């Protein structure tokens, strides 16, 4: 997917580089200073467990909000109005699902990874389940990581047009190297630094620019909406549902599938789950998630205003002619309002956004590989902390390099599609396992294995045979057509399939179940928590 260059001058690009490198140098230095100094694995996986709820909430917000929200969602609002705003609404609602359903039970029964929770519940057959979890987490983290790295190339395209192979490689390699340094050397403390700083910049930057847009319309939201509708080229239809996800049944199902994947997938994303385990006390976690809900809601609200403002000030045609996906809308708006300086600030913010999320993903995948796969399965719990820490750092480097290589191959892909495919896999494979583990007494290891592998296979297979891979102009292979599954996102089929497979695996399991005392202990632990 190649876009034409935005009408943004070179001085913005130069200023962006200077700002980005300045922030990275400062945060990387801080990350290395706060990195685990001793071979204590808890510090690498969980970081500072006594942070305040606000800091934890900022870290959660920074870990979750990616460039897909800042660029992709605002672009969708700019091009499709109401449908784009619903898309943003789904992002905020997803955090409510986390708060109400899984945050506290998972925190009380967890240790370092989701594998520890499942092992506490299913102690007899924990090893195969840990392997399955590690495979799913690696798949999700790699896909989402590639989406972030590809997003860095797409962002550069806004300034330079279609980049040369050298430029692409340099861009991906530099961002990928920073990700490896933060994750492998800094661990969770390093990731927390970049995520908190990014979250503060994101909240301030988005709300400031949104305020500037409203100021432009004399703080009159009606004036903004009317002007946006007028310049959208579709009149009042811009402010009504259906511009993007209306019309055919297929379109509506696609929207519903996407929203299902977003709302349910967040509760199963590995880097978000890792954040839920970090605070020491449950009360702090509760307040932290509330802060995260508020901050994510504020950013999504601001992003909606930015999208509408872009259409109102620039016109939908200008945005669409620059970039068909609308990812350039925020940068074009920034250039219109504040010239090179504001453009550079928001571009720097976009790069930091994808860097922070990539670090969180790499760390989550490395933790799962080192703790679940290496320490608990291969070494059967006999690995020393030094050994496990070394493997975690090496895993971070390996995952980072894998992400770089895959991003160089898939550099033209639609980043939002890749990211929401990761959401669908998380919701289809990991979420059923979490829900059944926490709330279903009868759940067995066979059910866990079937929901993990089955959910993963179902979502990946449906995605392969969807318009994401073939038949559509924006797909990987636009000239070939083997897309018999009509939807862009497989969530509407794969998520129920994951839950069904988990149930089926359990009811058909004729083997000896887990010891009943294991479940009783788990239930008490879910209420009481661990001794600290």
């Amino acid at each position: 997917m190649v876009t034409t260059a935005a009408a943004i001058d070179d001085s913005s690009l130069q200023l962006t580089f200077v700002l980005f490198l300045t922030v990275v140098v400062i945060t990387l230095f801080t990350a290395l200073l706060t990195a685990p100094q001793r071979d204590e694995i808890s510090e690498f996986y969980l970081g500072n467990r006594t942070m305040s709820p606000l800091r934890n909430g900022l870290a959660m917000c920074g870990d979750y909000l990616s460039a897909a929200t800042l660029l992709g969602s605002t672009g969708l609002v700019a091009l499709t109005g109401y449908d784009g705003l619903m898309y943003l609404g789904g992002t905020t609602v997803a955090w409510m699902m986390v708060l109400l359903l899984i945050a506290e039970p998972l925190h009380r029964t967890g240790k370092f990874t989701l594998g520890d929770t499942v092992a506490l519940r299913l102690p007899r057959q924990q090893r195969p389940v840990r392997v399955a979890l590690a495979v799913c987490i690696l798949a999700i983290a790699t896909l989402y990581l590639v989406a972030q790295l590809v997003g860095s190339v797409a962002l550069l395209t806004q300034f330079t047009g279609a980049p040369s192979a050298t430029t692409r490689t340099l861009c991906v390699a530099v961002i990928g190297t920073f990700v490896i340094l933060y994750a492998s050397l800094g661990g969770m403390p390093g990731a927390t630094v970049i995520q908190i700083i990014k979250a503060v910049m994101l909240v301030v930057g988005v709300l400031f620019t949104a305020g500037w847009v409203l100021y432009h319309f004399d703080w009159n939201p009606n004036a903004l909406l009317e002007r946006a509708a007028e310049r959208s080229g579709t009149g009042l239809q811009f402010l009504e549902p259906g511009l993007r996800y209306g019309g055919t049944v297929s379109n509506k199902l696609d929207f519903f599938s996407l929203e299902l994947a977003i709302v349910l997938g967040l509760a199963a994303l590995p880097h978000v789950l890792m954040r839920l385990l970090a605070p020491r006390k449950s009360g702090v976690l509760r307040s932290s998630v509330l802060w995260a809900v508020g901050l994510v809601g504020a950013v999504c609200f601001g992003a909606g205003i930015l999208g509408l403002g872009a259409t109102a000030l620039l016109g939908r045609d200008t945005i669409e002619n620059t970039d068909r996906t609308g990812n350039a809308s925020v940068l074009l708006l920034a250039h219109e309002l504040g010239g090179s300086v504001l453009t550079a600030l928001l571009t720097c913010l976009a790069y930091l956004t994808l860097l922070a999320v990539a670090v969180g993903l790499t760390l989550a995948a490395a933790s799962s590989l080192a703790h679940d796969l290496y320490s608990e399965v291969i070494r059967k719990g006999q690995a020393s902390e030094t050994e496990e820490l070394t493997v975690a750092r090496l895993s971070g480097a390996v995952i980072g390099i894998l992400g770089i290589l895959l991003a160089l191959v898939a550099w033209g892909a639609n980043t939002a599609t890749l990211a929401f495919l990761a959401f669908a896999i998380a919701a289809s494979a990991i979420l059923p396992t979490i829900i059944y583990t926490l709330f279903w007494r009868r759940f067995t290891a066979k059910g866990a294995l079937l929901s993990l592998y089955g959910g993963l296979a179902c979502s990946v297979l449906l995605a392969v045979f969807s318009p994401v891979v073939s038949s559509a102009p924006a797909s990987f292979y636009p000239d070939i057509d083997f897309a018999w599954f009509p939807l862009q996102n497989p969530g509407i089929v794969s998520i129920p399939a994951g839950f069904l497979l988990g149930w089926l695996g359990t009811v058909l399991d004729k083997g000896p179940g887990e010891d009943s005392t294991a479940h009783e202990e788990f239930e008490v632990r879910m209420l009481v928590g661990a001794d600290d």
Partner: protein
Amino acid sequence: MGVTAWCYVRHMRNRVDPLARGLRTRRHENDNRHARSATASQSAGQPLQHGARGFRTW
């Protein structure tokens, strides 16, 4: 959403947290009682009794 979050926090603080605190206190008392009886029987030369089901800690 704000109302939902507020209702959830109120429910957890009024109903669930006191229950969890009570269970935790009772568990600590049980553990202390068993530790004291195990120490007493050890000092009397009796073998250690594993009568009660303890909870694994992480």
